């Protein structure tokens, strides 16, 4: 008697939990995540983000050197501060190769920032995705540092991804590797644009390229920076690794090796603004004069 009541109550419990899950799926799927859901999610992300940064600080003691570097306001002030920072770090790095690697990373980020006229917030990667079906990283800067959803994220080597979720002190960045990530890319030699989509652990795929386009293996693919696009123009995405002809020559599929080494990603720049292409000096490019 008691047993059967327990079995029945267990069944009722499971059914109601399944219904609750389905309700959340439905509400979220219809794009109605606001109110209690969002508050709960943000609270959880704050707790987990704080712990992640604690753990990653233990794992990478080098990371703490960069905690002083918080906000980058104007190019001038930032220029000064970064140079100071690099100089300080250089002194400390005489005997430390891992620190030197960070400086290199930082230096190249600084160069990229200068070349493309980017303004932004530097951040350290403190965690990665919690499951195997999303390619993302958590960074240690959030809305308190001026980060908003959809902001592009770059590293010294090129495009990293964009911000998909923000709390006051952490943000989640969806990498260009994720199949949900689409970037407008442009082939550097022909100037032809196409859509670049993530392919998980494999090379990125570029599609929607006209079949008669000439594509050279190894050529650079950069962001096209369409009007009102998410990403600033001319940021390196990667280089062409293979070209496939599909559908009997009707379609060209290009695979792209990403410029960024995502397994060793430590410092990134969240781009809060960039100078319009006309007002900045063009990046040094080997274009032959006509």
């Amino acid at each position: 008697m008691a047993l059967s009541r327990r079995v029945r109550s267990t069944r009722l419990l499971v059914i109601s939990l399944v219904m609750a899950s389905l309700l959340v799926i439905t509400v979220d799927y219809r794009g109605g995540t606001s109110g209690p859901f969002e508050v709960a999610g943000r609270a959880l992300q704050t707790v987990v983000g704080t712990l992640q940064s604690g753990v990653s600080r233990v794992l990478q003691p080098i990371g703490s050197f960069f905690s002083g570097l918080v906000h980058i306001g104007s190019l001038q002030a930032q220029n000064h501060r970064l140079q100071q920072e690099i100089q300080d770090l250089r002194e400390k790095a005489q005997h430390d190769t891992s620190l030197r690697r960070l400086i290199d990373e930082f230096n190249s980020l600084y160069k990229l920032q200068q070349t493309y006229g980017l303004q932004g917030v530097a951040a350290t990667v403190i965690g990665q995705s919690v499951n195997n079906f999303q390619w993302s990283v958590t960074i240690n800067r959030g809305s308190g540092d001026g980060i908003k959803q959809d902001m592009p994220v770059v590293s010294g080597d090129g495009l990293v991804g964009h911000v998909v979720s923000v709390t006051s002190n952490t943000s989640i960045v969806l990498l260009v590797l994720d199949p949900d990530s689409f970037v407008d890319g442009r082939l550097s030699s022909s100037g032809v644009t196409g859509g670049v989509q993530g392919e998980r652990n494999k090379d990125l795929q570029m599609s929607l390229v006209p079949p008669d386009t000439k594509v050279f293996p190894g050529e650079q693919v950069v962001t096209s920076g369409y009007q009102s696009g998410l990403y600033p123009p001319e940021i390196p995405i990667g280089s062409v690794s293979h070209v496939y002809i599909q559908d009997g020559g009707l379609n060209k599929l290009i695979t792209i090796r990403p410029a960024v080494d995502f397994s060793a990603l430590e410092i990134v720049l969240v781009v809060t603004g960039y100078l319009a292409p006309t007002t900045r000096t063009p990046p040094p490019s080997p274009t032959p004069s006509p």
Partner: protein
Amino acid sequence: MRRALSWSAVVITALVLQSTVFAQITLIGVKPELVYLVTIVLALLEGPSAGAVAGFGGGMAQDFLLNQPKGITALTLTLVGYAVGMIRQYVVTPSPLLPVFVVAGATAVGVLFYGAVAFLLGVEIGGGYLTRAALLSGLYNAILTPVFYPIIRRVAESSRTKKVFRW
């Protein structure tokens, strides 16, 4: 109350470990699914209703840290926790290796179920990748079970209420 708190601590620890330490130490590119591991072990120790509750809570927590339709992991793990708790009742001779095999199988099946639901909701999940991820995370979880099982059992026992558990 105490039970809810200590289980939440276990789930949050699992999520943090999974996104930091185990994101670096992967098994051929695949991370373990620690929240699945926690749910399955709790279901083995505490039965179907506790397994379902732990799965729902842990799954929902994981969902809220992802940029994918929320509730899929919660649905998956509610069913996994309940099913594993039911299976436990039919095991006559408990071998010490039983948790390892149950964790391996239930994780792989759970991940496949997750992938199927996510696919139906329009998430891009390649069939080949899904199978690979399911098998490898099942294997990885099984390898980690001898490490985590005693810890989870200690937490479960210390937080167990004296009364008969009724939800």
